[in-house]
């Protein structure tokens, strides 16, 4: 009996896209203000069932980052391209969703006697939370160090999440944005385990998984995604990776100073970072050395061996400026006009 002729798309079809949108984030300029996070939250996850989700997050590195210890939770591929087992972040790992006794303290005349106290979404006092380790970093005086790590879905070119969904609910749009079809998702969470960046969040109320949608309704109107547009630090570039006039193309492909986080995870991510050029370190006699404060090994741990070349280019170009010479790269990174950063995505939100 032929009831329905369901054609099942291949993974290749689901992962294919004509073009690829990409974001570049300059870690030298990110000040950890969380404006990008708030912009995203206000637009997409300011819902009772989504308070624990931060599709856009900023955490202090080195640290357990966000979701907590995502780097230890597996997923992605090994060098031979074999799928790697992964774990699911808990509510606490996902930054929790605290509630506060605002009513009691602020509206019932207890402001002099009671303190504002957070309560975990699981009940009781919090164990850990979003941005818990802000500005802690690592290193001993006189050489402490940290930088901010803004993260969102990488809209990978080999998205493990697409590969992991037995229901083929996850797919790439023509522009490379990775989306979860909420009608097809049944909350099995294989995508959550498979994403090595842990950028998929389970909604325990709808029992479906959710993730960054790169503000696609804005993209369709040529408005840059909210996190990118909202950044007051001018850290962000956004556009098609094959658009030779876009800042993303120039920083990633031409100057080769923007590199992905954890390229060894094997998913070919499309968020790129300009690595931090840290201040010079002091030696035992408190004299400045030529060493950078953030150890090379730490940066290599995040961005792979490619970080050394990127940093060398950045330092050389900065040196040019210091000497009073021109540096197109430094001018691009300063990016005086916001319109220069977002290629064709410069419409205003209405």
């Amino acid at each position, binding site marked *: *009996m*032929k*009831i*329905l*002729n*369901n*054609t*099942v798309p291949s*993974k290749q079809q689901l992962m294919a896209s004509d073009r690829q949108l990409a974001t570049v984030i300059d870690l030298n300029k990110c000040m950890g203000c969380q404006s990008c996070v708030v912009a995203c939250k206000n637009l997409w996850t300011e819902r009772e069932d989504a308070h*624990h989700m931060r599709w856009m997050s900023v955490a202090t590195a080195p640290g357990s980052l966000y979701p907590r210890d995502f780097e230890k939770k597996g*997923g992605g591929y090994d060098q031979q391209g*074999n*799928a790697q*087992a*992964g*774990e*699911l*972040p*808990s*509510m606490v*790992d*996902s930054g929790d969703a605290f509630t506060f006794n605002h009513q009691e303290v602020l509206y019932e005349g207890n402001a002099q006697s009671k303190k504002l106290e957070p309560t975990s979404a*699981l009940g009781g006092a919090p164990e850990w939370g979003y941005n818990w380790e802000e500005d802690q970093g690592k290193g001993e005086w006189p050489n402490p160090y940290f930088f901010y790590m803004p993260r969102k879905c990488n809209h990978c070119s080999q998205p*493990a999440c697409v*590969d*992991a*969904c*037995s*229901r*083929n609910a996850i797919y790439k749009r023509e522009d490379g944005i990775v989306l979860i079809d909420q009608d097809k998702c*049944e909350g*099995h*969470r*294989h995508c959550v*385990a*498979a994403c090595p960046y842990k950028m998929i*969040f*389970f909604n*325990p109320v709808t*029992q479906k998984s959710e993730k960054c949608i790169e503000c696609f309704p804005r993209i369709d109107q040529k408005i840059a995604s909210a996190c990118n547009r909202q950044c007051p630090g001018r850290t962000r570039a956004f556009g098609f990776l094959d658009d030779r006039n876009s800042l993303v193309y120039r920083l990633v492909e031409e100057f080769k100073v923007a590199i992905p986080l954890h390229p060894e995870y094997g998913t070919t991510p499309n968020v790129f970072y300009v690595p931090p050029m840290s201040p010079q370190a002091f030696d035992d006699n408190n004299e400045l050395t030529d060493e950078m404060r953030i150890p090379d090994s730490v940066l290599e741990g995040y961005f792979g061996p490619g970080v050394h070349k990127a940093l060398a280019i950045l330092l050389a170009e900065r040196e040019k400026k210091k000497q009073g010479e021109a540096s197109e790269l430094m001018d691009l990174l300063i990016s005086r006009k916001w319109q220069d950063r977002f290629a064709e995505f410069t419409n205003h939100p209405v």
Partner: protein
Amino acid sequence: MKVPYIKQHADVFLDPNAGLWKKSAVGRFNLMPTPIKMIEHLSPFMANSTEYGKVNQIESRIAHNGAKITILLSWQDATRNDAIRDLDQFIDGVAVMFPFTSNANPLTMGDAENPVNAWFWRADKEEPYDVIAHGYGSSKRRIGKELGLVVNSSYQDGRWTVVFQRALRAGLISHQQVNFAPDKVTGISFAVWDGGNADRAAQKSFSGGWEPLELEA
């Protein structure tokens, strides 16, 4: 297994302790983990799973009253997982599956030409789902109540008991539901998910091939 005709009001069948169930022989079926490598093309990640599908037996009694068929299931599960309290938790469940045609393969949950119909209960839902599948990956949950499927469930002493009931003849053909008729033989197959063991989708234990289901007149 034999499905006796028992002349009783359908509501009585929904009580697992009703005396009428003594007239229906218990079927005991061994369950095993699904051959999960078969879904490598749908999810190489899920296909790597190892510790799933540990529930190894299900008991079933089935009876009909000429109008409705009732399926009484029970199995051992030391942990009751009937709510998602944290993001890494899963739900206990059970399903029975039926073929539309003799060609439908239970090991693949049917295929494009040979769909299967399943009744699917989850411990966190009041209502069951009526599922239609054209091969794994294609399953669609439909609200059981809208399709005449009802369920009654209880958990006691480390055992789940679940009772499914539906009219022998379903409503509209367009609803794509299996039909049963006295004197007709069809097949049934069982699957159990242990939420405490992160079972979901193909991570479950199942009974293998079709078990013949003979409705007595």
